């Protein structure tokens, strides 16, 4: 973090791509490598099992060894997943994308505007408001969900898509992250120059600052997108109509039917294949966008 330049790009904030880490003598250690590699099956085997299991039909799940393939049945499984209950899985995927997308973009926009204002303007209530937001990082989201449900029940918002989206728009951690980021990313001299040119404050934000804040914006967007994509508790308590469920709640419902064993045993293979389908987009996003994760976690960890 030698970010003395006025506008660090993510590459600069991100600690990763230096070829040889500082502070090392450069010698590679085969022993250490082997020790670490020996632990990797713990992290990867469950996912490997998921891939193997989603290629099996329900009978093979029970009769064949779990960590190796039997008859390949992936295509049939996928068809089952996408056609079960009138194709409700499509709705779940659409809902998850909608909830996560709107929450991600919305939360990132709110956090960017607020974080920028906290960083670049000394306004009377700024310190107080920012302390309140900081304190809210500690408020447990799950414990907050029941009170939110009670409130939404009062105003008839439960079992609507808003019930999942609205609470997901708030990211106090995102505001904190953007405040830290904006302090360095938007040079005050640049704002002064724009003022001299006669630009209004809002224009400065939208035309000058927002572009410089884009990497931070994307980091907050990703964090909130994944948090909402993975959220289970909030949609579980808010929604009762299956066509409004996101993937997490839908899969959990299939699982409880399958485990209940009410003649619906065929569903085990659907739960497993559906689980695999639901994590594919996230895994791809993780692998391709990892520099943003690291930038975000670095800001949180180093400056927190």
């Amino acid at each position, binding site marked *: 973090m030698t970010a003395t330049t006025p506008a660090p790009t993510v590459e600069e904030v991100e600690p990763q791509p230096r070829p040889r*880490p500082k*502070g090392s003598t450069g010698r590679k250690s085969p022993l250490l490598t082997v020790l670490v590699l020996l632990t990797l099956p713990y992290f990867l085997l469950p996912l490997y099992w998921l891939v193997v299991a989603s290629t099996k039909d329900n009978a093979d799940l029970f009769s064949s060894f779990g960590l190796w393939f039997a008859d390949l049945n992936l295509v049939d499984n996928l068809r089952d997943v996408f056609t079960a209950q009138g194709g409700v899985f499509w709705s779940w995927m659409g809902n998850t994308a909608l909830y996560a997308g709107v929450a991600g973009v919305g939360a990132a926009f709110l956090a960017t505007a607020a974080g920028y204002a906290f960083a670049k303007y000394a306004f009377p209530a700024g310190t107080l408001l920012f302390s309140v937001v900081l304190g809210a990082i500690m408020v447990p989201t799950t414990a907050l969900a029941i009170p939110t449900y009670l409130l939404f029940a*009062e105003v008839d918002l439960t079992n609507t898509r808003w019930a999942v989206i609205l609470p997901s728009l708030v990211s106090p951690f995102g505001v904190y992250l953007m405040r830290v980021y904006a302090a360095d990313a938007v040079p005050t001299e640049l704002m002064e120059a724009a003022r001299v040119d006669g630009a209004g404050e809002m224009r400065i934000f939208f035309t000058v600052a927002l572009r410089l804040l884009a990497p931070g914006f994307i980091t907050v967007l990703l964090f909130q997108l994944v948090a909402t994509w993975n959220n289970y508790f909030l949609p579980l308590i808010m929604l009762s109509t299956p066509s409004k469920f996101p993937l997490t709640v839908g899969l959990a419902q299939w699982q409880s039917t399958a485990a209940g064993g009410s003649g619906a045993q065929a569903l085990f293979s659907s739960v497993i294949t559906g689980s695999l389908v639901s994590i594919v987009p996230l895994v791809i996003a993780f692998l391709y966008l990892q520099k943003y994760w690291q930038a975000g976690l670095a800001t949180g960890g180093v400056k927190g």
Partner: protein
Amino acid sequence: MTAPTTTGPAGGATAPGRAGPRRRGHSPAVRRQHRAAYLLVAPFMVVFAAMLVVPLVYAAYLSLFREQLVGGRSFVGLANYARALGDSAFGEGVLRVTLFLVIQVPIMLGLALLFALALDSGRLYAQRFVRLSIFLPYAVPSVVATLMWGYLYGPDFGPFTQIAEGLQLPAPPFLSSSWMLGSLMNILTWEFIGYNMIIMFAALRAVPADLYEAARMDGAGELRIAWSIKIPAIRSAILLTVIFSVIGSYQLFNEPNLLQTLAPNVIDSAYTPNLYAYNLAFTSQDLNYAAAVAFLLAAGIAVVSYVVQLTSQRRARS
């Protein structure tokens, strides 16, 4: 603090707008800037108030009442809180997650720290592959992680059972009442080692290298450098992971809720405090009491994380 650019804990929360205008004369230009600042902060603050402050206030309000079939809603003061404090089901849940926390968090964070130090040492072949493999479980939603581990644990087609049967050994009873807490610890550890590792790793990379150069000149070994220089240098990042883990443990819900379908006799309706609050609200329909339990839980978590922060800061100073 670790980075030279940092201004203190909470990233210099005490100096907002240090780069902004310093004039206090409230000229028209300054007033215009204040107006802009409020305008920019307003959208977030409105949603923040509506989705965070109002629900908490409303839950606090509800928790002071009791709903009865005869007589309707009546004000009972702090009776619901008194009931919660004397409620053995709630108490057992709190004790259970405390036990969970005391065992699981040190294991998870200890392993995360070892991995972070190994990555930071620069002595690994296939560094990138290792880092991504360990971080990958974080991309898996907790629902899918739990379903997956539930099947792996399961007696029907779990590979552990299959291997044990192949070796003619008794199958490990992962979902029995004596193993369940350990099985849950394992799921959470699997999910979050990588996340915590990345936080610590990023902090390690920000430690100025000259700090160790001198130690290395003096002949200090890598282990000694890790213990005496690197770990103390990233204590604020470690503290952050401790606080996040404490908050997460007390909120435990998804994993036990989903394993309940596989082991309904082991995980009861009050297995964790959050599961209890959920069942109070949605099974027993006792909304007022559920509000009190949820509120007590949120307040308890806030107090615990504050205490963790305070004690560690005090220790840092002494």
